[in-house]
Each structure stands twice: as C-alpha cells, then as structure tokens.
C-alpha cells in the first residue's frame, strides 16, 4: 500500500457475548455474532431480543419437560458440503393433516462467511436446506426452479411449537405459516408464506449416517421410519437399468438363437435325393429310407423337401417311423411352383421348397416311408428330403428370458410400491388398488 494510508477503522469486534437472561439470570451465549435476532434462554425458555443490549423479553412459552431434545446439541460444529457450520438454533414445528399432528425438527446452522443453512429431521429422515435466491415459478401442481420441475406434494399450515437457541430472524412460538412442498427426489422445493411474504427454500435428502459423521455425533443413528416425501427410492434408479439390461440380454438372446439356428446344432441327420417318375403305377411308388438316428431329449424334427418343380407339383405322403417302437407320424406335403406372364406382367406362385416341423419326437432309430405323387403328364421330378433334429433352443431361451424378466418385474413392482408409499402421505394419494376402505 502507498504511504499515508490511514489505519482502517474496523467496527467493534463482535464476539460471543456473555449475557444473562433477564428472566431467570442464566447465562446466554450468542454464537452467531451479530446475526442473531432472537435468542431463547435454554433454562427458562424466554424468547429474548438478541439485538437489545438488555435482552428484552419478547415471549415466554410453556415447555413440557421431557420433550424430545435436539439430536444435535446446540454449539456442535460439523462439516457440511465442505464448510464448517455450528448449530445455533433448534425449533420444533408441526402440521396437522386430517386431525393427525406431524412433528418435525429444524436446526439452524451458521458459518460467519457462508451464512445460515438448515437441517430438518422427521422420523429419521433428514434434509439439508438452503434459501432460494432465484424465484421459482409455479404452474398448476408443479414448481420449476433453475430448470428442474418439482411435483406438488402437500400444502399445510405449519405451526412453531418450541424454539431453542438463536435465530437470525424474529421467531415466536405459535407462529403460523402456510408451508407448501414440491418434490423431485432427492430434492424438494418448499415455500413458506407468512402474511404476504413468501420464502422459498431448496432441500436435499441426506442420510442420518451422513449427519452423524458430519457432526461427529455419538451413539447410533436413528433408523428412518416410512418413506419420506423426497427420499430417493432405493430401487427407482435400478428400474431403468434393469429394463435396459433386460432389453440388451433379450437382443443378445435373439442373436444367439439366430446363431444356433444357422449353425451345427441343427445339422441334417438324414439327407437323400430321389427321382420321381410320374408314369409309374401309384402303388409301387412307396419306399422306405435308410435308418437314421435322432438323438437328445424329446424335441422337434424338421423335414424339408426341395423339388425341382417347374410349373408342376409333387405331393409326398410321409411317415416318420420309430424303428424301435413302431410309433409313426404321418403327414402329407406338397411342393408346387408355377410362374408365367400375363397382362399384369410376370407372376409366380408357390415355392420349390417346403418345410414342416414335427413336434415332440423322442430319441431313437428312425426311417421315413415316402410315397410321392405327381402330375403324370410331366417329366421326372428330382427331390431332396432332409431331416434335421431341432435343437431344444426355444425352451432354453425361454427360461433365460424369464430369468431376466422376473427380476425386472420385481424391481419395477418394488419401485411402484415405494412411490405409492411416498405419495400416500401427500395431498395427492394414489388411487387404491383392490379393496378400498373408503
């Protein structure tokens, strides 16, 4: 600095002032330096004007002894979001819904550079809360804040029942505010309206274990009870993942199935080419093939007939016969192929190839009895008979498919149940499925 700069005139240094309660004489400590507006005597619960040098009494309120004390004692310091905070105030508030009172706790945290932030606790569910600087927009049953949309959860009349410590605002017991919550787990957006002044705050769900760690609290962390309005669903994140996984596996299964279909597992167990001479008497046309083996467990058999028919047809009476048991499967197949030209151009009908699947054929030694028929006016027709043992792919793939589908359905169901539990506490409870008591 240049010479001649005068010494700075700092305002008087604030410090934790040692004061006494004007009502009961107990020591009052002001932790938030000059920020405190009201301070509550810890011993007689007089609400005092912290800005007044004599700590003028603003309000007295009745305290039922043995009421649940703050879980984080006043004066406790902890590190939250990388900043040191000291607990300076505590209040108990409640709302009444359909005659039932719900109580929650609020903690005022203070840092002389970063200011105040709040923690709320309801049945073991914690929220880390800051006051909004930007203005949310409300439309119908939703509120938008910084591009994020929150769903309306509840509007209720919040009452202050108990206060302790310091508050950077004028706090009074039995003060009412209209509290409205909008949720988008793990965050929630809340507005509090007193007279015509609205304050918005943004909360983020925080686990009790993280609070215990941040403030180095002794003892066990109270287990949260029920589902809280902005509690992140333990499964909803998995729902998308599991369906994506399911889809991925299903596609993979299809590819593998296609692979099985095209490769060795369905190689022909019998293949032979014959020539059908149409002029021969019908009775003599019947013949049997060599014996072939069908292996594996009971499954399907695919029989393919390829014939070089050209504007002709051939009809084959087949019998698949088990040599060991005599069991036979009879079926007739026609192969016909016609084509030509007419006024509309070229046309064709039929195919030179025909396939049939015979289901549930046990393993064993088999042969075919074949009896071909054809148009006697046509030249000889060559045809190839091919037998394939169908691999039991469909059953196997079906089981794999179900194995993937079941957890996906279970997780989706659990997620839906969690959301139903969440919203059942709101102003918009889900419609009851099944027996409704109403």
């Amino acid at each position, binding site marked *: 600095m*240049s010479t*001649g*700069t*005068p*010494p*700075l*005139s*700092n*305002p*008087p*240094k*604030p*410090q*934790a002032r040692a004061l006494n309660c004007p009502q009961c004489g107990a020591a009052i400590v002001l932790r*938030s*330096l*000059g*920020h405190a*507006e009201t301070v509550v005597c810890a011993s007689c619960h007089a609400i005092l004007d912290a*800005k007044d040098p004599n700590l003028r009494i603003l309000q007295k309120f009745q305290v039922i002894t043995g009421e649940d004390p703050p879980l984080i004692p006043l004066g406790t310091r902890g590190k939250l979001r990388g900043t*040191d905070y000291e607990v300076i105030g505590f209040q108990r508030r409640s709302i009444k819904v359909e005659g039932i009172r719900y109580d929650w706790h609020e903690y005022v945290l203070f*840092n*002389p*550079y*970063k*200011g*105040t932030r709040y923690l709320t606790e309801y049945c073991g569910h914690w929220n880390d809360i800051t*006051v909004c*600087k*930007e*203005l*949310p*927009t409300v439309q119908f049953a939703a509120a*938008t804040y910084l591009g994020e949309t929150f769903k309306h959860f509840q509007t209720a009349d919040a009452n202050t029942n108990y206060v302790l410590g310091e508050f*950077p*605002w*004028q706090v009074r017991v039995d003060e009412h505010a209209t509290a409205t919550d909008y949720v988008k787990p793990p965050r929630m957006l809340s507005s509090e309206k007193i007279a*015509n*002044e*609205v304050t918005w705050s943004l909360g983020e769900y925080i686990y009790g274990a993280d609070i215990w760690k941040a403030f180095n609290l002794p003892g066990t962390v109270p287990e949260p009870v029920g589902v809280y309005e902005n509690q992140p669903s333990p499964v909803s994140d998995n729902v998308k993942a599991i369906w994506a996984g399911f889809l991925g596996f299903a596609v993979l299964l299809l590819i593998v199935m296609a692979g099985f279909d095209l490769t060795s597992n369905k190689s022909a167990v019998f293949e032979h080419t014959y020539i059908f001479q149409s002029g021969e008497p019908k009775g003599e046309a019947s013949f049997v093939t060599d014996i072939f083996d069908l292996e594996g467990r009971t499954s399907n058999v695919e029989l393919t007939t390829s014939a070089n028919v050209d504007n002709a047809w051939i009809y084959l009476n087949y019998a698949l016969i088990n040599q060991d048991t005599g069991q036979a499967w009879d079926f007739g197949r026609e192969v016909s192929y016609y084509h030509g030209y007419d006024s509309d151009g070229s046309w064709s009908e039929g195919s030179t190839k025909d396939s049939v699947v015979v289901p549930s054929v046990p393993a064993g030694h088999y042969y075919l009895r074949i009896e071909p028929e054809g148009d006697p006016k046509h030249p000889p027709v060559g045809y190839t008979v091919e037998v394939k043992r169908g691999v039991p792919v469909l059953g196997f793939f079906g089981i794999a498919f179900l194995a993937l589908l079941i957890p996906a359905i279970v997780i989706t169901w659990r997620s839906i149940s969690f959301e139903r539990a969440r919203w059942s506490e709101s102003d918009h409870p889900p419609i009851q499925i099944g027996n409704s008591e109403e």
Partner: protein
Amino acid sequence: MTQPASNCPNCGAKIVFQWSSSVQTVCPYCKSILVRTDVDLEKVGKVADLPPDSSPIQLNTEGIYRSKSFVVIGRILYEYDQGGWNEWHIMMNDGKSAWLSDAQNEYAISFATTATGLPTASQVLIGQQYTWNKQRYTVSVITPAHYRGVEGELPFQYWDKTDVTFADLRSETGKFATLDFSDEQPALYLGEFVEFDDLKLKNLRSFEGW
C-alpha cells in the same frame, strides 16, 4: 489511487480518495462525514459508532467479479425489523463503481442504472412484475429500512437520511433488482446474486474461533 489528497477540515488528517468520482467519505480518525466540494472538503456531520455487525467484508476487502478485480471503498449500513444489511461500495478495476450487498451472508452485486419512469413507493406492491433490460422481475419484498451509518467513500451524499424504503425484486434467474425510494426520484439498481466462494475475497475480517 493517485487522487489528490486533502486534509480533514475537522482534525487535519490526510484524506485520500481511492475513486475519483467519490462524493463523500468518512475521516477514518475523527469519523467526520466529509463531502467533496470544488475546492476542498466540507464537514457535514459525524458518524456515530457503528453497531457491532457480522459482515466478513470490510473496507479494503478485495475480490473478483466477472474476471474484474474490485476493492471495497465504502459502506452503508441499514437496519430493518428483521436485522440489518450492508451495502458495500466497491470500485471495479475498470473505474466503474458497484455495490456488493451482504444481507445475512447472502451476497449480491448490483450496478446503478439511469432508468426513468420508475414506479413510486406507493405504487409498488408485492407480486407485481416489471421488465428491465428484457429481464422480468417480481417484487418479492418491500422493506422500510433505517439508515444506520456510513463508512468510507460513497458516490453520493448520504448523511442526512433516516428512514428509507426499498423494494426488492427477484427473477427466475439469479438476477435481482432493487428500487431505492430514498430520494424524490426512485433509483433502480440491477444485479445478480453471487456465491461467496466465487468472489475469491481477500482481506476479509477474521472471526475468533473460525
């Protein structure tokens, strides 16, 4: 920082103006409120001791806003029924002056505008909307405040005020506006909320135990 030095007409201490456009300053020794005239400094009053307050900012605190450095050269302290707040007068390194407000550690930087046709105090209601510079603002709170004291250099004379009314307007972005009804003609300040850490403040006050 090379403004001509004058002497305090009350105690004779050397007074150096850090900003050429400052109109008023407070003698750091005798607390006389001094107003610049064409020739010298005129004592117009005396500042009562400021109450203890808790802003971590003080005169000569330095920081950075939108990649421009600034230094705190003055301050107005206000009180209202829910507490107090500071308007710190800051000088940017491009010679512009602005305000860094600290309302219970909620920080914002704003600039004076030359807007005219502004509503008067009696016309403004909570919930009303106004658009300035294509940004829509909603009146969120109207604060009758009490002028509590000044320190350092200010861009205007501000020593004879007692009660002042402000209307704060917020937007859906971080922008905010303040209508200042302390003069006959309302004044409009436009600015935005800033994060403490983003200002990279130096020469802050230290708090015992923190």
